[in-house]
């Protein structure tokens, strides 16, 4: 029994950060993300699941991912659209999705003008409203909208040529 507790502690300490990070870029919300990761560990304790060292990380990450996607699927269209949660109707994120995200990041980091990148950063990392972004950057809300729209056009064009 003692050994079991220490092993869950080891799993937790070793993998929590990575699991949380994964949840954070699928689900975004801090509290929800912590809950998801905790739930995965709670489930392991409850069901007395023994993980094999070779596959434990993959298992834990997949569990987090599935839980996040299940949570998103339960949300209303309105909430998903507002929070910009990706509705993976095709099922689980494809394995090459991570690669695509890296590619996408490369495109984002080359967006011009710098203002465009700044808008994205304030919106997606700081979770500011469009009005707050406009006020922050001393531009109109319409300008913010236009930059976003054009940024997405660039992204779509690039993603098309690279994949999909």
């Amino acid at each position, binding site marked *: 029994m003692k050994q079991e507790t220490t092993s869950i502690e080891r799993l937790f300490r070793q993998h929590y950060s990575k699991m949380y*990070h994964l949840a954070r870029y699928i689900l975004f919300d801090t509290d929800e993300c912590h809950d998801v990761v905790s739930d995965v560990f709670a489930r392991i304790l409850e069901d007395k699941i023994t993980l094999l060292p070779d596959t434990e990380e993959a298992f834990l990450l997949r569990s987090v991912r599935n839980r996040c996607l299940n949570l998103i699927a339960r949300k209303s269209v309105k909430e998903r659209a507002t929070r910009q949660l990706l509705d993976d109707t095709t099922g689980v994120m494809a394995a090459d999705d991570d690669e695509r995200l890296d590619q996408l990041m490369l495109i984002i980091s080359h967006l011009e003008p710098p203002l465009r990148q700044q808008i994205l950063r304030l919106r997606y990392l700081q979770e500011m409203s469009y009005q707050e972004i406009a006020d922050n950057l001393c531009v109109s809300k319409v300008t913010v909208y236009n930059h976003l729209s054009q940024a997405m056009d660039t992204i779509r064009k690039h993603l098309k040529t690279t994949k999909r």
Partner: protein
Amino acid sequence: MKEETINKKRTQLLDMQEHPDRYTEEAFNDLLTDEDVRRFAYDMAMTKRAMRKHEREEVDVDRTWKAFSTRHQPRHRNRIKVVAATIGIIFLSSIAFAAVLRWGFFRSTRSEIPNHNQPVIAQKHPNTSLQDTIPAQQDSTSNLPIVFDDAELATILNQMAAYYHVEVVFQRKQSKHVRLYFRWNRQKSLSQQLELLNAFDRINLTLSDHTLIVD
């Protein structure tokens, strides 16, 4: 002209994101039927993901662990159960072990036993206990939990249905393609499985009269 409507619809979506309380669920649904808007929303969500992925947030794992471990202290009752089960297993296996010893002992050196009544009883006893233990062991290997990894609900349920001798009826096609990770412990009953599966938000199963209905 066309570009104008595209921009109008995109602006509409952005405005709805800004003031979700002003719009109904239907309004969102309607707008998202538009191919371009849907793609626009998808690209924005992907962008958010990509940027989030590249931004690390420090987590105080130590504090989180402490919070977790106080909330999920191993329950006392569970521990007793485990201990009791272990004792049970040890007890059983020692009976079997003793039986094997005795049985083997009798077969080779029967004449050395002075007692007349005991051999008959003893011989009968080990035989049955051996039969009990051997099939039990075979069972436990074939009863290892089956792990479905990223499997479709239809795949899982069809296998279960065959095993538990029920029929599956899918009321909605989409339900077949819900993907999940699931551990199927075949030593548990079908209703126990359903309880586990129903814990998933997207799954709703009911069993009535040897028919498993998937909502």
